[in-house]
Structure formats: C-alpha cells, structure tokens
C-alpha cells in the first residue's frame, strides 16, 4: 500500500510541477500583447497610454528576467497570489476564482457521483437481461455519444424555452440578491437543475454501458463459474460480479475526470453558469492570461484532488492494492 501511494504521489507531484510550468508559460506565449489589448479600446492619449502600459507591465512583473519570473511565480503560488485579473481589473485572480469554485462543486460533485452510482446500478441491471440489453441500453450509447453542449442546448430549448419550465442562464434570478431564504435557495437550485441534468445524463449513459460490458466479463470469470457449480443462487453470483465490476469502473472514473471537466466547461458556457469553465472561456476571449493561469491551475488541482480521493476509495474496496500489489487497471 505504501508503494501504491508512493507511486501515486510521485505522479501527482510531477503532474503538478509540469502543470504549473505550462501554466507559467501561458502568458509568455500568448499572441499579441495582452496589456496593449487591454488598453487598446481605452482611446487614451498616447502618453497616458504609455504610463498605464508601464504600470501594468510592472504590476504583472513582466519586466524581470525570465528565471526570476519563474521563481516568483512559484513563490507567489505558495502565497496564494495568482496576480491580478486584467479582464476584471483590479480584482485579484484568486478572489475571482474562489467566487466561481462553489458553483463547480455544486455542479460536478453530484453530477459525477450520482451518475456513477445510478449508471452502474442500471448497467448491472440491464446486463444479460436480454430485452433490456437490446432496448434500453442503446439509449445508453446515444447518451454517452451526445456532445454535452448539444444535450444542454436541447434541454434549454425544450424545457427552458418551449415549455418554459426552467431558466437557462445564470445562477440565480436577477430580482434576487443573495440571502438565506427558501425563495432564494429554491431559485438557486432551479437554475442549477438543467446544467446538472445535462452533465448527469451524458455520464449516466457512459457508466451504464461501461458496467454492462464489465459485468459480463465478471459473470464469465472463474469464481462466478465456481459459485454456480456450488449451486449458489444467481443473486450471490451477480452481487459478486457487480462488486468486482465496480473496480474498473472506479479507475474508469479517474480516467474520465478530464472528459467530465471538459463537459462541465461547455455546459457552463451553454447555461452561462458562473463556474471556472465559463470563467476560463471569458478569460481566454479577453486575453486575460492571469485569469487563464488561475483557471488552469484550479482545474488541475481539482482533478488531482479528485484522483487522490478515488485512489483512497480504491484502496478501501480493492484488497489487492492494500496487499502490496498496485491494483491499477487499464
């Protein structure tokens, strides 16, 4: 087990190092001059523009030697200082991000966990039940093949516009200012539902068919046959098969995280839901590379943490990892 976690930590460590370096490179490679872009539409007189330009350049520490910039970046990082957003000038990037993070948690956590649980249940249920396998499962394939944004668009169109059941933009109504009341909470949930639904459905399909295919392997495994030979009822056999099929599904979840993040990103864009993904896009479109850095960093950290959480769960459920062997499955 120590070895197992040792490996994991090494990988995560290196990943983080790499990610941060990429992150640091981002602004250094952006096309054009972000500060010039920022000031461009200001229609200033030349010398005023010049003063501001030098000011910003200094504020963003772009006037230091490269190696020093890199060290400063790390240093600042550990002090939780990600610079100042140019797009939301003069708000510090960290503050902008901390505002967005809760929305992502609210969106992703339930979507991921629920779809995983429900999808697996359903897949196991459908597997080897011929009529289900042939009728309901195709739905799974459709769902998992659906581009997140398209499902989002459809939901927005049908439920939001045609039927007018749900709002399709923002996190809460414009006639409310945040406060603790049922009115407000329900409003928030009401806005949250469609983005959540589109994330949930797509993943649900994926997990369902994933489990369906996994469990068929497991039902054909030797231990299943042995149990049958000993006349144990189908219930037990299926139960074992299900539990064991969950393991690859679990590592599958880890592999999927990247894709899910992507899904969340576009979903947030479709429903203009103020999470990191939405922020990242605006940041890119507005050439705000400090914000881009921040978003990227947060996403990476998020994914790493999630991965680690999954590793822990994996150790808990799979004895093989605990007993020294690395329980990694491809």
């Amino acid at each position, binding site marked *: 087990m120590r070895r197992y976690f040792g490996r994991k930590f090494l990988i995560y460590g290196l990943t983080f190092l790499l990610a941060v370096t990429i992150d640091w490179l981002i602004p250094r490679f952006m096309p054009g001059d972000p500060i010039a872009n920022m000031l461009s539409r200001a229609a200033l007189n030349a010398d005023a523009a010049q003063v501001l330009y030098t000011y910003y350049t200094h504020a963003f520490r772009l006037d230091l030697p490269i190696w020093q910039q890199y060290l400063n970046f790390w240093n600042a990082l550990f002090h939780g200082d990600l610079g100042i957003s140019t797009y939301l000038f003069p708000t510090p990037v960290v503050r902008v991000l901390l505002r967005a993070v809760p929305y992502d948690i609210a969106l992703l956590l339930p979507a991921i966990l629920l779809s995983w649980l429900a999808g697996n249940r359903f897949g196991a249920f459908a597997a080897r039940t011929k009529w289900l396998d042939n009728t309901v499962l195709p739905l799974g394939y459709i769902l998992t093949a659906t581009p997140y944004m398209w499902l989002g668009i459809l939901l927005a169109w049908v439920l939001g516009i045609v039927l007018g059941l749900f709002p399709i933009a923002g996190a809460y109504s414009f006639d409310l200012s945040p406060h603790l009341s049922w009115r407000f909470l329900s409003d928030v949930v009401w806005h949250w539902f469609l983005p959540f639904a589109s994330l949930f459905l797509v993943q649900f399909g994926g997990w369902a068919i994933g489990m369906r295919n996994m469990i068929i392997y497991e039902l054909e*495994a*030797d*231990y299943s*046959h*042995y*149990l*049958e*030979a*000993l*006349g*144990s*009822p189908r*219930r*037990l056999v299926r139960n*074992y098969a299900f*539990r*064991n099929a969950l*393991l690859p599904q679990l590592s599958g979840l880890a592999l999927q995280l990247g894709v899910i993040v992507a899904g969340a990103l576009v979903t947030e864009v479709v429903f203009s839901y103020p999470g990191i993904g939405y922020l990242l896009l605006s940041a890119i479109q507005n050439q705000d590379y400090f914000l881009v850095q921040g978003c990227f960093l947060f996403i990476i950290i998020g994914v790493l943490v999630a991965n680690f959480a999954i590793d822990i769960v994996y150790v808990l*459920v*799979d*004895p*093989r990892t605990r*007993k020294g*062997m690395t329980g990694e499955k491809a």
Partner: protein
Amino acid sequence: MSLQVENLRVYYQTLRGDVKALDGATFTIEDREIMGLAGESGCGKTTLGHSLIRLTAPLRYVEGRVILDGAELPIADMARMDEFRMKRISIIPQYAMNALNPTRKIGTMTQELIRSRRMEAETSPEELRRRLDLVRLPHDVLNMYPIELSGGMKQRMVMVLSTLLNPSLLIADEITSALDVATQKAVAEMLVEFRDRGIVKSMIVITHDVSILYQVADSILVMYAGQLAEKASTETIIRSPRHPYTKMLVSSLPTVGVRYAEHKLAGIPGTTPLLLDPPQGCRFRDRCPVAFRKCVEVPPFLELAKGHWVACWKEFGSHA
C-alpha cells in the same frame, strides 16, 4: 452403488455443427470408489466432468441418465441442479487457483456461500476449522484475501469449500496439473483422506497424469475420442490393460510423473479423429495396430472380467 451413468451424450455446439465430445458413456462408480478418468486432452473427460455438475452452453445435453444414490440428476436443468450441487455432488475445478472471489475475505465468502445455500445449521464454524486442519491450512486464512494465499493453499481452500457439505460424489478436475510434484503428492493424499474420513463417498479424479492416478485411484476409466475405452482397477489398467489404446497409453508412459497429454502420444502414429463427424465404428481403428473389418461397427462397452470393462472387438473375439 453411488453413481450410475447411462448412455450419456453431451455435444459441444460449434458453428460447423455439434462436436460429439461425449458420445454415449455408460459406467458406474461404487461407494467409496475413487475413479480416475484418463485420456488425451479433447477425449471428453472434462466434458464428462462438467456434464455431471454444470452443463451450460456451449455444451448441449442430448440423451442419457445420471443416477446418484438412486436419485436421477436433472443435469440438463441448471436451476433444478442447484439443489444437488455441493450437497450431493461437488467439484474441485481445474481453475481452482482463480476460483475464489479476489475481493472477498475467504471467511466472509464461505459464510455468504453457506448462507445462500441455507446450510448454516449443517455447518458449524468448528466443523469448518476441522476441515482446515485436515488440509493443513491455518485458521486465519479465513481473514485473508485469496491473493494472500499460495497456489497450493488456494487449491486446498477450494477443496475444503467444495466438500464442506459432504457431497457423496466429488469431481476433481485436473487439480494437480498446476502444482509441483511435492504438492501434487500432498493434494493426492488429501483426496484419499477425504474419502477415508467419509467426507465424500466417491470421487472422479480427472487428470492427464496417470502417475497421480496410480497413487490415488482405485479404478481408472480410459476415454478416447469422446467414448469409453476401458475401465478397470488401477492395478489391472497399469499391469494388464486390454484395449489397444490403453496399452499404448500405459506403455508410452516412460517414467512416472511425466505429462504426455499436452503433445500427442509419442508412440502412437496418426492423430485423434475430429469429433465433428467421427469415423463409423471404433474411433481408434485408424490408429489401431490390430484393427480388423469388424471394427467398422461400434464396439459395445462390455464387462469382460469382474469390474473390467472394455470396448474392443478384438477382446470380445478372443473371448467369444
């Protein structure tokens, strides 16, 4: 008599038609008899073993009856067989190494199995530990995961599990093939001990390895190409076999403990016939040195001497 198999036919379904893997087997096993089942791979011995306890696709039941302790086994009916499995008839599978659920503590799995069979009453924890002692497994294996056990330990654990409900017939399928010679011997001895202690009444030991049978089996049934060739007491089979195939089998056995079945018999020219459409009559005739015209008819499986059954016209001839 414990087990009685009558004209059992089980075919193996493939796209190009049925493979007559087991084509009419009739034999009996006495109480307390350990019968070895020998033959080259693909001769149908494993098919026979499986047919008795878990007959699933692509195997297909064609005809024949199996009577265990006077009751007929519904071998063609997966569901109805459950009642008999483990209680009356049980198996130590070839894949004993992987037979245990990797993610369950062995003790837990055992209990869940027992409970699922509603046999809690019949199996006290003490009894379970006694069985473990019997196969020389420490009691704390119950708190271990299969992965923590060596191959031999796993196999012994499976032996305990399979025999926990004292089945009257135990099928041991190639249980030694994966083990080193020393362990083989131990396992073999345990099998005998199971019988001696009356945990199992009788046993079918399927193996490539005649030398093992020499150690454990009271009798040996030799199969060839999906049909029975000869059955007799181990002594007789080794010392004075009568079916030409058995003779070659035994004689091509250079030293005890050599496995031959992986590659085809050294001494015997020709190959085992494809069982898709086997030749008429005696299936061994193409390779048989002593074959004659009579052999185009299927030879019956007759008891020539007490407990000595042979399917060969030559033999009948000499005794007609």
